[in-house]
């Protein structure tokens, strides 16, 4: 079905970006002697889709953990919108406008889909427990959050599982709910740790669709770790490749794809 519409996508592939939203500069991370990251640096343009790839153990998740404040960089700086935030705590990072998902799904298993996504609104809520206990003062606030969250539920097409406890959902849907929770935070940067791991083609297509839509419709910058080269090459604007805690390549997908170091360390012969 090759119409003008799908060509419209393709012409979009090379996009122009203005400034950097996130600058990682010379970051080192050590765990009791193990060097997880060594002098890694890269910059993410505002509004782009940025992928971090590399073999298992290359330090991709460590990188994400440094960005989201779980790990402290022993050296180097991380600037967000030009401001140094290297030593912020995870909760402060969240309030700055970062949201992330986890490789192994970090949902609140005892809660429903709706409640899980609602928790994402906590950063946006100004209410206190007294008014909540009395309910009526807090009701408008609660309804306003619900309306926002329903928009996300509709966006992610998870209406039918709205009130299902997430523990009972299949893996692919859980991933989607986790994305929903991150979106509920209205982040400026969305960090996704292997959003398509363990998914079949159909689910990967859906997830890719959502990532593109988030990027397009909300202008959210997306930083993702992913192993599926098809996805990475199709949707990223820039890719950084890590191996053994070091950066071995950086650039647009097509450049990275043909880089010899990358092929040797990661892609293998095909």
């Amino acid at each position, binding site marked *: 079905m090759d119409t003008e519409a*799908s060509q419209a*996508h*393709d012409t979009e*592939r090379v996009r122009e970006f203005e400034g950097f939203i996130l600058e990682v500069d010379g970051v080192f991370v050590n*765990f009791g002697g*193990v060097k997880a990251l060594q002098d890694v640096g890269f910059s993410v343009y505002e509004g782009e889709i940025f992928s971090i790839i*590399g*073999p*298992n*153990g*290359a330090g991709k998740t460590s990188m994400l953990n440094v960005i989201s404040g779980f790990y402290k960089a022993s050296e180097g700086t991380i600037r967000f919108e030009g401001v140094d935030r290297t030593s912020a705590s995870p909760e402060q990072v969240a309030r700055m406008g970062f949201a992330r998902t986890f*490789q*192994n799904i970090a949902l609140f298993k005892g809660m429903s889909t709706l409640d899980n996504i609602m928790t994402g609104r906590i950063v946006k809520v100004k209410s206190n427990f007294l008014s909540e206990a009395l309910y009526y003062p807090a009701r408008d606030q609660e309804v306003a959050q619900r309306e926002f969250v329903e928009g996300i539920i509709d966006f992610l097409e998870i209406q039918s599982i709205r009130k299902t406890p997430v523990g*009972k*959902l*299949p*893996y*692919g*849907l859980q991933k989607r709910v986790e994305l929903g929770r991150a979106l509920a935070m209205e982040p400026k940067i969305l960090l996704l740790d*292997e959003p398509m*791991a*363990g*998914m*079949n*083609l*159909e*689910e*990967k*297509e*859906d997830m*890719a*669709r959502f990532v*593109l839509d988030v990027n397009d419709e909300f202008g959210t910058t997306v930083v993702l770790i992913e*192993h599926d*080269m*098809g*996805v990475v090459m*199709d*949707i990223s604007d820039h890719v950084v490749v890590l191996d053994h805690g070091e950066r071995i390549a950086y650039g647009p997908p097509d450049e990275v794809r043909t880089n010899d170091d990358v092929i040797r360390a*990661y*892609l*293998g012969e095909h």
Partner: protein
Amino acid sequence: MNESTQSSSTNGEAIISVNNIEVIYDRVILVLKGVSLEVPERGIIALLGANGAGKTTTLKAISNLLRAERGEVTKGSIIYRGERVDALTPSDLVVRGVTQVMEGRHCFEHLTVEENLLTGAYTRRDGRAAIQADLELVYSYFPRLKERRTGVAGYISGGEQQMTAVGRALMAKPSVILLDEPSMGLAPTLVEEIFEIIKRLNENEHVTILLAEQNTNMALRYSQYGYILENGRVVMDGNASDLLQNEDVKEFYLGVSGENRKSFRNVKHYRRRKRWLA
């Protein structure tokens, strides 16, 4: 959609046969509906399908791990070497030679790689020497693990964890390994490596393997026969080579439409897909 031969056409007798099982979770949620499959001795059999289709549940039904999750097999039977295994505990099954490698690796994070491997030999009663020999055997398949033998499992990479989990299963000297998503979260080179090892294990050690995989392409390349699950039912089965050629499988599971691979950028919001069963 060609009508393929009905019976599993692989070498050897069925070592595991699952007959028409139905699984209900929490007493109310029906997950598997009449799933039947046969695993021939020394075969590699792939269980394919979307998330939530029931692959993991099927594996857990065989290894009897369902009860821990409030699930139960309410209908049908599971036969291993001519014996009904429904009433056995998971550890009984390990003793009898059926070991499961769970999805998401599940290593003991605080133990070293070697300690992790040794826990796999827990049920064995054939002496230290034999166990030591098998440890070396595992290291011969996974030289990476030998390098990392003293590393704490929580700090090794995902691929190494996956290898540790498979290695640990091997330590029980199983005749059947139920392998859940071995490729999940692994880099392309590693995926290939793991599947190669699985193949060699199958060929050299005569281990029968039942594999649940999302990575349809890989799974079908390394297995002899495949079952496709949808909504808790087997909707299609056949020789791996046939399935690889099947247009529907190509379209829905391999991402190949006509000649070209579809770009992820051009995915539509709606889907007009054939479902074998509603």
